[in-house]
């Protein structure tokens, strides 16, 4: 397992020198570099960043917006907070480069309400950034928008609704934000970490970056490690690592399960540690929680479900009602009012939620539910 130090690395040159260098390059060249690097979004959905920027670059519009998603509402994630407190400058460079490439002239940092304490520092940083932009004759203004606490507002279209002053409800897609986003204008939404990684790709070159990771996932990323671990905190690791190695490093010797990709991700039981790769598929959310044998997986799952039933925006049927049914159904099996086989009905229900919910929240509830119920069935029943 390889620890990496890209995201938090110190600057070795004067502030914003990197930015000035990148801004001299052709837009399409930057896009090409990003595509080649294989960088995928770090906000959860794992969409290739180069392709997103390319799509936005191709959309014609008199006004485009560039949003940095710092809503970080997922339980057990705190990596974006670390980035914004330690290396905010890199985030703004990432935004600046993204705005340059896509043609956006307005930037918004959508900051989780609980991170209000950062605003003063960040504003100072923004002031400096604006000065540099002016020097470069680059028309780009960033402002901070404070979120108001709903997890679903981290979903990019709900986030856009909330900036527009509406209820934070995800929109129908298409149109995608890059086609019609904030106030109907093309809008690019990127996670904090994605922007830093994009900046670093431009700085170090795709070839260098590509050397990290596997063909499926390139580069490195931050993991927020929590639970039964001796080393809680944010760690930058090369992608493509398997759970066994991860547990070796961060476990407490008694790890029975690891939740990878946050509450929306999967729960890996001990028997699968060897074959499971963290972040396989597309769930690249950064939270990893370790559970040792003293933990009740039933309690863990109930906790997740309570979170989802509360944090679903409530607009669509499969998610609003599905989350409640899973919660009630699981309890009913535990207390014997429904037979153990009811768990299978509930797993079927998660499939409906996965294919029929409107947004990523409802679609992913089944990941943790099915993986926990399937692997710890006895704990659910007795």
């Amino acid at each position, binding site marked *: 397992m390889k620890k990496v130090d890209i995201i938090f690395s110190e600057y070795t040159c004067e502030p914003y020198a990197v930015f000035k260098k990148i801004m001299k390059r052709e837009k399409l060249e930057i896009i090409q570099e990003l595509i080649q690097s294989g960088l995928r979004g770090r906000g959860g959905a794992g969409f290739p960043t180069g392709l997103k920027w390319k799509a936005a670059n191709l959309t014609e519009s008199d006004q485009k917006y560039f949003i940095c998603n710092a809503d970080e509402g997922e339980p057990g994630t705190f990596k974006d907070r670390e980035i914004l407190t330690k290396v905010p400058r890199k985030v703004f460079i990432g935004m600046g480069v993204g705005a340059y490439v896509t043609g956006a002239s307005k930037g918004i940092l959508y900051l989780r309400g609980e991170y209000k304490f950062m605003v003063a520092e960040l504003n100072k940083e923004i002031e400096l950034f604006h000065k540099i932009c002016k020097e470069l004759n680059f028309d780009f203004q960033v402002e901070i928008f404070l979120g108001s606490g709903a997890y679903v507002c981290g979903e990019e279209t709900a986030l856009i609704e909330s900036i527009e002053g509406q209820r934070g*409800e995800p929109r*129908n897609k298409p149109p995608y934000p890059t086609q019609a986003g904030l106030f109907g204008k093309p809008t690019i939404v990127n996670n904090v970490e994605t922007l830093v990684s994009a900046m670093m790709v431009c700085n170090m070159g795709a070839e260098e970056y590509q050397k990290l990771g596997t063909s499926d996932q390139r580069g490195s990323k931050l993991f927020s490690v929590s639970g039964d671990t001796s080393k809680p905190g944010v760690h930058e690791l090369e992608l493509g690592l398997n759970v066994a190695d991860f547990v070796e490093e961060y476990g407490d010797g008694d790890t029975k399960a690891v939740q990878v990709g946050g509450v929306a991700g999967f729960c890996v039981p001990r028997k699968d540690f060897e074959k499971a790769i963290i972040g396989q598929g597309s769930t690249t959310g950064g939270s990893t929680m370790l559970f040792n044998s003293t933990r009740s997986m039933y309690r863990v799952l109930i906790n997740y479900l309570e979170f989802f039933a509360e944090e679903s925006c409530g607009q669509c049927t499969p998610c609003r009602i599905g989350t409640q049914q899973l919660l009630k159904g699981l309890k009913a099996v535990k207390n014997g009012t429904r037979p153990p086989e009811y768990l299978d009905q509930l797993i079927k229900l998660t499939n409906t939620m996965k294919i*029929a919910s409107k947004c990523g929240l409802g679609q992913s509830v089944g990941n943790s539910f099915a993986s926990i119920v399937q692997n710890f069935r006895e704990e659910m029943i007795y």
Partner: protein
Amino acid sequence: MKENIILYIDNQEVKADKGQTILEAARNAKIYIPTLCHHEDLCIAGNCRVCVVEIEGKNKLEASCATPVENNMRISTLSPKVRNARKDIVSMLVSEHNTQCTTCYRNTNCELQDLAFEYNVDNNVYISLVDHKYHIDKSSWSIEKDPSKCVRCQRCVRTCSELQHVNALTVAHKGEHMEIQTFMDLPLNEVVCTNCGQCVIHCPTGALTERRYYDEVWEALGDPEKHVVINTAPSVRVALGETQGMPAGTLVTGKMVAALKKMGFNSVLDTDFTADLTIMEEGTELLMRLKKALVDKENVALPMITSCSPGWVKYIEHMYSDKLAHLSSCKSPQQMFGAMAKTYYAAKIGVDPKDIYVVAGMPCAAKKYEANRVEMKSSGFQDVDAGLTTRELGHMIKSAGIDFKELEDGQFDSLMGVSSGAGDIFAATGGVMEAALRTAYEIVTGREVPFKNLNILPVRGLESIKETSIKFENCLPEWSFLNGVEAKFAVTHGLKNAKVIMDMIVAGECPYIFVEIMACPGGCIGGGGQPIPTNNEIRKKRMEAIYREDAGKKLRKSHENPEIIQIYNDFLGKPLGELSHKLLHTKYRPRNRY
């Protein structure tokens, strides 16, 4: 430019336009896809997920109401994957629902019930989520809200905001606690709600209904002491048939009258008659305002705006309370009827007005509230005792066991039962304007209004704001001050459009002298008390029917109605006379905006 797209739905080749949704393309090709949150009148929500379909190459299902067509898309609307998901979704909706069909007003006319039937939902799969501590809001004269029957489709919210610009309803809370609320969850009678009932005809279930008064009416019908009269609005006769299984646009005037007589009304009379009376009063009022403005150079509020739509009246009272002078002081035909029934009619037939029970059969939810306004007691009693919607009338006909389709046509009773075609067309947006112009122009010039067959086509139809203008020439001596005046008129419907006109007035840029405003899209034929469903296709059919009724009448101008001439001769004297003022005109009051 239209771009044509070809796609395949259930292996059938379907042509569509770029920008259309899969649902629209399917419907055009007569392929059925179930829906719940979708409504033709409203913006796309895509939240119920009942309309999901499978698109080849995609693992997830997509909501057909919200997904645009693409070339060569291959779509399956009936695959097991789709059917299973839909069944699960409907089962979930049922698990959240206080299913009480046997006692529900929407029984047999409910979209959730239909879906549960189509998908053969087993009520026991999921655990009931119903919280039995729910509260039914019965505070309003017009609207009842039962949250336990809400499927959270947000159709009401979109209606109140997109069509009506009132925003009385909103989505509150999230997740399991998400629900539809009024501002601060206050009772409906305390918030800014116009009682228009548009949310009710857009609600798929029994969560929003009109407050029903049919039990009181049955009670009165069975009371030997009471002389019960009903007046039916023009738009009821073109819609009531739908409640009895007849196609939209069927004209059932005669059958309606016959059915009401069977139910035991002592007298079945016509709101059209008081519509004619409204024209006499309102037309004269307009001319008097013009005279004051042009001859006496007084400062009068122009344009004058119609006041027959109580939802609209409440809207302006809330939203533009400093512009109430623009409203005509005329009561609505329903309220004129009530006042006349308990004075003129009572005297003529020799019944003590206290024993007269006036029922109004209306396309409207707001009329229920209007009947209960404190201003509406000019006869010395409450002028109108009970307001019923077209739906309630339909319900009563069924409950009386009347085989409606087989009825022989009946005739309205006399004394306030004769009406002109001008009264009929009050039913549709533009009708009051057309009727008023037919009369006012003739009063001023002595000639018929200069439109072919008296049909003022520019003010008809569903366009949002319609305009016309008339140049007055060769006026009669009394009206010579109008010579050469080119008068502009406008008609609008739906409160969203009313706002456009009002904002013109506020900005001092309103070129019209007379404006007709109806609260409901399409006017009364699309009223909040009309049969469900109501959509543009159905509105058009009802409209066509009412213009047929008008065109088929010999009597087409209000001022030529012999009963109108008689009521002025025998009772009222002249339009805007002293008695008229007391009985047929009213006052308005400013209300809070919030």
